[in-house]
């Protein structure tokens, strides 16, 4: 009780700090210089309609690479963490009742749609809200659906890892190519910007988006798979 009160007190003080921040906060009325730069240069420098994606993949591309790496790491570590309590092949999932007809059939119907949606979101990241992460997540939701429909199902490990690795390598490779042939690491002008607003435009953004999407999808799938393959699953 004292402990909780103490925690409460501390959080109160922390909250008062936050309150100070809030009270002192005045929403900006103008874009600050960074944002203004992005807003004005998104078109000619990046050629992406979606400024967020433009920032995400080009100007802050290194963050995005890091972000992908976070997922990569998580996938790798989750598989390391859980590898020790991995169930023998075929043993996991056997404890569950088979999924119902509805789920199985629904899965079969939905999967292509999900994949399509994922691909669309990925490819159109530079034009509309969305992008590699979102697309990858949608793809992974497909994988989740499959697992729900058939708990004893196994994905091809190799394929997932290959996809993951290859897309990651390609991402890094693109970045390096940017250093060689354009203005720097992950420079967007490696490819021509194309027509503003078209699908194949905005330099390498669509490619990177797709790579990210594939990688994120693969990583999520890999995490799900690791979780699924434990003894208790």
């Amino acid at each position, binding site marked *: 009780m004292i402990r909780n009160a103490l925690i409460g007190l501390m959080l109160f003080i922390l909250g008062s700090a936050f309150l100070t921040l809030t009270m002192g906060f005045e929403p900006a009325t103008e874009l600050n210089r960074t944002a203004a730069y992005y807003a004005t240069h*998104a078109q000619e420098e990046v050629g992406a309609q979606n400024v967020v994606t433009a920032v995400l993949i080009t100007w802050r591309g290194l963050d995005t690479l890091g*972000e992908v790496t976070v*997922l990569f790491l998580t996938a790798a570590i989750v598989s390391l963490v859980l590898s020790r309590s991995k169930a023998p092949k075929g043993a996991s999932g056997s404890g569950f009742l088979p999924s119902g007809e509805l789920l199985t059939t629904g899965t079969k119907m939905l999967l292509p749609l999900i994949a399509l949606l994922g691909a669309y979101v990925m490819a159109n990241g530079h034009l509309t809200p969305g992008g590699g992460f979102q697309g990858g997540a949608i793809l992974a939701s497909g994988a989740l659906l499959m697992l729900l429909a058939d708990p004893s199902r196994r994905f091809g490990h190799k394929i997932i890892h290959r996809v993951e690795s290859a897309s990651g390598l390609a991402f890094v490779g693109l970045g390096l190519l940017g250093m060689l042939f354009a203005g720097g690491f992950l420079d967007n002008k490696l490819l021509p910007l194309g027509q503003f607003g078209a699908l194949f435009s905005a330099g390498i953004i669509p490619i990177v988006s797709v790579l990210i999407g594939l990688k994120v999808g693969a990583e999520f799938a890999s995490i799900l798979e690791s979780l699924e393959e434990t003894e208790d699953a």
Partner: protein
Amino acid sequence: MAQVSLLIGFTLILLGLYGALTNRDILRMIVSFTIADAGVNVVLVSVGYMAHRTAPILDSAVPAGQAAARIIDPVPQVLVLTAIVIGLGVTALMLAYAYRLFRLRGSLDISQFMDLKW
């Protein structure tokens, strides 16, 4: 408006922290942290919010020329994207650990894992 969402965000953070610090169950702690993460994300987005403006997409509604005057700050959105993904990664990792810890002791009470101390 911005203040309100900020306050909500901060409240979420504090609630999450309170939950994480008072619940001894590991899963509840993880959930609490997720709440706190969400709060952080709310805070991030709120800071970028500007009244009477639109999303930073330069489509027909917002011509590139007027962008600076019409769109809200895209940067917090970028950041929140990244933050979400990272938060997700950490949560997944914590869950995996939680599972392993559960396998170790058959319990999810964090006070069971005090072999290392002093």
